[in-house]
Structure formats: structure tokens, C-alpha cells
């Protein structure tokens, strides 16, 4: 009787440690399986942020958004990942979207083409920023 309790306890301990180790080392998940909380054009998103940043932060920050807009700039980052700028209706700034490193370069449209993507909205720093984006 005592022995079986000990075995169960030992088992629970090992399982607990394994779960803990797994949770601790869990990588950042891609947004592939997450549904977008809202769908919005890049120009509408940019104008909402420029008109009232506090309100736009409350509405969009930390949310997965599906956005659509015209691709005006493609930049290669120092790690080889790509950042896209979508036209926000402003002469200099727009919606800056860092693509997830897993995104296939072939799937990125050419400059001037429309693009639709899903990403995590993280706020405004001159440009409205989106992280972990994937092309839809």
C-alpha cells in the first residue's frame, strides 16, 4: 500500500517536472492557428492611430489583425527577415509589418502590389507596428 503511494508520488513528480520543463522552454508560437480579431485596411488603421493613439491602442494593441494595403516598401532586416511598409495615406509613415522569419520570400508581393496579412498589432512608433506577420 505504502509502496504504491510512493510510486504514484514519484510518477507525479516526474510528470510535473517534465510539464514544467516543457512550458519553460516552449517557443513563441506563430500566428498561423490564431484567428484575426478584426479586419481593417492599412490606411484606416494608420488614420485611427494618428487621430487618437490612446483609443487606437485600446482597440487594437495586443490583438491579431488581418490588414490589407498597398505595399510601398520592402526592407531586409539584419537577421535576414523582411519588414514591409504598407501605405497608410501619409507621405512618410505607414504600417510597418515585420514578417515572421518562417514566411517564404516567394510569397511576398512586389512593391506597389496589394498585400493582405495577419499579424500582432503592437502600437505606434511613427509607423503603426505589426509583429510576427504572415501573408494571407
Amino acid at each position, binding site marked *: 500500500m505504502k509502496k504504491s503511494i510512493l510510486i504514484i508520488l514519484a510518477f507525479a513528480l516526474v510528470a510535473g517536472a517534465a510539464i514544467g520543463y516543457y*512550458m519553460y*522552454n516552449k517557443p*513563441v508560437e506563430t500566428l498561423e492557428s490564431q484567428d484575426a480579431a478584426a479586419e481593417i485596411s492599412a490606411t484606416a488603421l494608420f488614420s485611427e492611430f494618428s487621430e487618437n493613439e490612446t483609443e487606437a491602442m485600446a482597440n487594437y494593441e495586443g490583438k491579431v489583425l488581418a490588414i490589407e494595403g498597398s505595399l510601398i516598401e520592402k526592407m531586409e*532586416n539584419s537577421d535576414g*527577415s523582411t*519588414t514591409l511598409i504598407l501605405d497608410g495615406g501619409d507621405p512618410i509613415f505607414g504600417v510597418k509589418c515585420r514578417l515572421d522569419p518562417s514566411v517564404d520570400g516567394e510569397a511576398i508581393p512586389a512593391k506597389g502590389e496589394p498585400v493582405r496579412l495577419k499579424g500582432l498589432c503592437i*502600437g505606434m*512608433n511613427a*509607423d503603426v507596428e505589426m509583429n510576427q506577420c504572415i501573408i494571407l
Partner: protein
Amino acid sequence: MKTIITVLLITVTTALSAQTKYFTRNGTVTFFSSAPMEDITAENYNATAVLDTETGAVEFSVLMKSFNFKKALMQEHFNENYVESDKFPKSTFKAKIVNMDKIDLTKDGSYPAEVEGEMTIHGVTKSITPEGTIVVKDGAVNLESKFIVKPEDYEIEIPDVVREKIAKEIEVTVLADLEPLKR
């Protein structure tokens, strides 16, 4: 009247030809923490930086939530417990390159830059004087710098439980490939 027009024309043409503002929106800021239990790196590839070569004024800004970690739990703890990204979404560094007059942007080369400025992280502003390098090549201006940031200087509290996993001194590396600002 003619003189006024000539003066005006000269002023306008010099203003147009003298490119003094350089800019990037995909600068790299990484930090590295080396502690007995674990080494941690976080990378941000979307830093914004502006350099005015006439005055030597330079400004960096990043959104804290664009730092990418390898482990989900670390990213969550960084944003929620340490830098409190919801309360303080942005970090900035507003500085001046004090020896700008010794840096010749028309000549390719690597120049040491003496920087003095104010760093704001977690809502706390500190004066720092990091050293940097400006590399000029084919009209492009690259900034590089490496310096130490102490979390406690910015009132970032690291609980004792994770003390062995997070260094007291974090090494920050900044790289920015700047291009003339187009209007």
C-alpha cells in the same frame, strides 16, 4: 529686388542640396544577458533612428513589444513583469554626437563617435555616454554601438527567484544603416 530673389534662390538651392537628415526604420537593437543559469538574447529589427549630420543630434526609438525572444514565457515575463510594456510601450535614446565635426560623411571610412544622451526605458530617464562607430560607405551612413544597461538603474525589479537567470548588467548592441531622408 533682384538681389532679394538671388539670395532667396541661393538659400533654397542650398537647403535642397545639403542632405543633413539620415533615417532608418529597420535598425537592429539586441540585448544579451549572461547569467550562471542561462544566457538570454532578445532581438528587435524595427528600431527607428534619425541622425541630423549638421547638429550631430541622433534619436532612436523602439517599441518594447517588438523585442523577439526564443522562449514564449521569457517574452511574456519581459513585457508583463519587467519592462511593463503596457504602461511604458516605448524606449527612446535622444543624444548628440559631440565630435560630429571630426566625421567626414563625404569620405568612406570608420569614425569613432562620442555620444552623450538620455536613455528612457520603463519610464525612467538616465544620462549615458556610450561609444559608437560611424561607418561611411558609398553615401550610406551606418551607426554601431555596444553598451551596458543595468536593469536596476531603470527601476526594473528582478525577483530573487530568477536572479540566477538574469544578469545585473545587460549588453545592448545597436546597428543602424541610415539612408538620406526622402521627402
